[in-house]
């Protein structure tokens, strides 16, 4: 009997380790031989812990499983109260276009055999047969844009580094996924770490970098462990080291752990942190592509950007490019979160409307109450009200409505949400996490909290002041922490003026 129980952090947080132990114990008690695989999550967080059992027809899903539900698994899986049917026939799975997350939840994350059975290493092998310039061209032609949030064309970044002179170049993977409502990087590192390793190795080949670093958050202990194990396995198998898959190319990598600073998700702050310094933001130019880690040419890319490279190299640029809409090519791994009925990871081509995502796919709120607002793009993204639910999910369409898609995290909030409180939190968070370099961010965020408290107390002069402050932060901050904090604040004020007026009206 082959049984899968995820080791993904969300599954573990909901009891997956206890379920796994219960399965092992029950099997031993009944004298039944089982193979237990700790896989990644399929991304249906509302069903975790999602247990799968192999059958001749495919993998059957059961969830959300608790230890008490385990004995019945051995009695008759057809009648199990938590039976869901074949995993891959579930509507959430069928509706997706899983290119980057194709293997996540399917494979044993630490089995290279499984990885290669599911098209792993095909991209790397092809890249080794091409010239570096050809690899760069393929990634450029795919239309892949940075999935961290900035949306900068990946191929152009790689071309810059490839063309830079110097004896040492680096690939730095930004795995400091600090935005609330985002967990795609984490899910991928835990569920399919070899994909990230393969993507980084291909990047190394393309630009002439021999060393890679994955900078990940300390808040992701399972992801850290999985990546370190996968790197060791990859080294032993000759995927990493002095001769990648037997070639003349050298590439190796290691994991570096952050220390609780949100701003270190900004690429230059991250580089400073990796150099052993305070995570202060650097001015650009110089671009990290030319002067990055240790002053050397460095590709800094998000986990999902790098993890999308193997499938691009395997299936070709045109295959990837043909998904999507407008200038937003390929797929996006949506992370639907907050007060949500069906929350989790949903990979799809660009172009679905926000409303389709929030109300149809995600089923609205967990409480069943109306959706008041959705924050798209993390803590520095705008709150969109239902009136903007027709906005297509692309970089350009969201920008046109004064929003951003960022790393594609979505926080659903129901009608009990106080938008003034959320605006205040945006300023408070900025104040806590500011690196301190820019006065508009360092001081402005503190004043922003105070000004919002004045709004709450009914001070009529506070709202124009808040607007003016937001303009200053937007124009005068070196990075997106201070620069984009105005997005959640001003969108809350613009779309939900009642939440900012009530105190004044009460005072009057």
């Amino acid at each position: 009997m082959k049984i899968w129980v995820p080791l993904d952090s969300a599954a573990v947080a909901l009891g997956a380790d206890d379920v796994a132990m219960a399965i092992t114990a029950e099997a031993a008690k009944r004298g039944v031989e089982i193979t237990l695989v700790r896989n990644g999550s399929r991304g249906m967080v509302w069903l975790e812990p999602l247990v799968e059992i192999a059958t001749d027809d495919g993998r059957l899903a059961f969830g959300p499983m608790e230890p008490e539900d385990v004995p019945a698994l051995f009695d008759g899986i057809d009648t199990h109260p938590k039976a869901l049917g074949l995993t891959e026939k579930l509507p959430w799975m069928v509706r997706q276009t899983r290119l980057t997350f194709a293997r996540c939840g399917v494979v044993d994350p630490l089995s290279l055999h499984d990885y290669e059975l599911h098209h792993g290493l095909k991209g790397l092998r092809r890249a080794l047969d091409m010239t570096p310039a050809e690899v760069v061209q393929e990634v450029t032609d795919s239309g892949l844009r940075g999935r961290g949030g900035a949306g900068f064309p990946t191929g152009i970044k790689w071309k810059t580094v490839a063309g830079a002179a110097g004896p040492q170049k680096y690939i730095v993977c930004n795995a400091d996924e600090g935005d609330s409502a985002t967990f795609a990087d984490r899910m991928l590192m835990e569920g399919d770490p070899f994909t990230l390793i393969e993507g980084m190795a291909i990047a190394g080949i393309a630009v002439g970098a021999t060393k890679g670093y994955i900078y990940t958050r300390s808040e992701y202990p399972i992801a850290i462990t999985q990546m370190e194990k996968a790197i060791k396995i990859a080294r032993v198998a000759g995927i990493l080291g002095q001769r990648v898959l037997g070639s003349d190319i050298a590439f190796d990598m290691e994991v570096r752990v952050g220390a609780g600073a949100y701003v270190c998700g900004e690429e230059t702050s991250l580089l400073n942190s990796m150099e052993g310094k305070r995570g202060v933001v650097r001015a650009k130019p110089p671009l990290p592509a030319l002067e990055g880690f240790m002053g050397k040419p460095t590709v800094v890319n998000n986990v999902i950007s790098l993890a999308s490279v193997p499938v691009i190299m395997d299936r070709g640029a045109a295959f990837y490019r043909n998904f999507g809409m407008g200038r937003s090519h390929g797929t996006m791994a949506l992370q639907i979160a907050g007060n949500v009925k069906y929350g989790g990871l949903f990979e799809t081509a660009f172009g679905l409307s926000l409303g389709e995502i929030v109300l149809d796919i995600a089923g609205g709120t967990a409480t069943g109450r109306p959706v008041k607002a959705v924050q798209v793009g993390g803590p520095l993204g705008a709150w969109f009200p239902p009136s903007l639910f027709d906005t297509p999910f692309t970089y350009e369409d969201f920008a046109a409505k004064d929003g951003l898609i960022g790393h594609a995290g979505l926080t659903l909030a129901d009608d009990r949400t106080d938008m003034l409180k959320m605006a205040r939190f945006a300023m408070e968070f900025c104040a806590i996490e500011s690196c301190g370099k820019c006065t508009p961010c360092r001081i402005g965020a503190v004043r922003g909290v105070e000004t919002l408290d004045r709004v709450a107390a009914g001070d009529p002069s506070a709202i124009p002041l808040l607007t003016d402050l937001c303009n200053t932060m937007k124009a005068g901050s070196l990075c997106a922490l201070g620069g984009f904090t105005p997005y959640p604040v001003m969108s809350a004020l613009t779309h939900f003026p009642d939440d900012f007026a009530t105190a004044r009206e009460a005072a009057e």
Partner: protein
Amino acid sequence: MPSTPAFGDSGVQTLREILDAHRGMEGALLPILHGVQAAFGHVPPEALPIIAQDLNISRAEAHGVMSFYHDFREVPAGRTVLKLCRAESCQAVGADALADHARDRLGVDWHGTTADGAVTLEPVFCLGLCACGPAAMVNGKLVGRADAARIDRILEGAR
């Protein structure tokens, strides 16, 4: 309050082993500080000048780096470290009320430790459990869909 153990010669020895293990690493300071905190439960003030000398940086710089990052503690934590997520997705499912409950039960504010040294309460901004909040971490163990009853059980077990 938890007492800060004396650093002493054994502390210096442990620290030197950590420094040796990181020799030659590019940008070694954060891995070193993580190693020190793992070994001592905090970053002892006696350790910073030794680290600074080893890396050929100033004491001010070493202190500056250590104090920048939320993870590094100057003093040891309580026996149980309870981290509650304060970020937007968890707020959307009641994390604020949960935090108020915890602070009330413990009688401490954020970053505080109970007088008996049992529990330290820390805020965390995102554990990546955003579709199953409110999220928490108890001595490194992840908890999803935390509620007041669960927190009470955790605190009961932490006595």
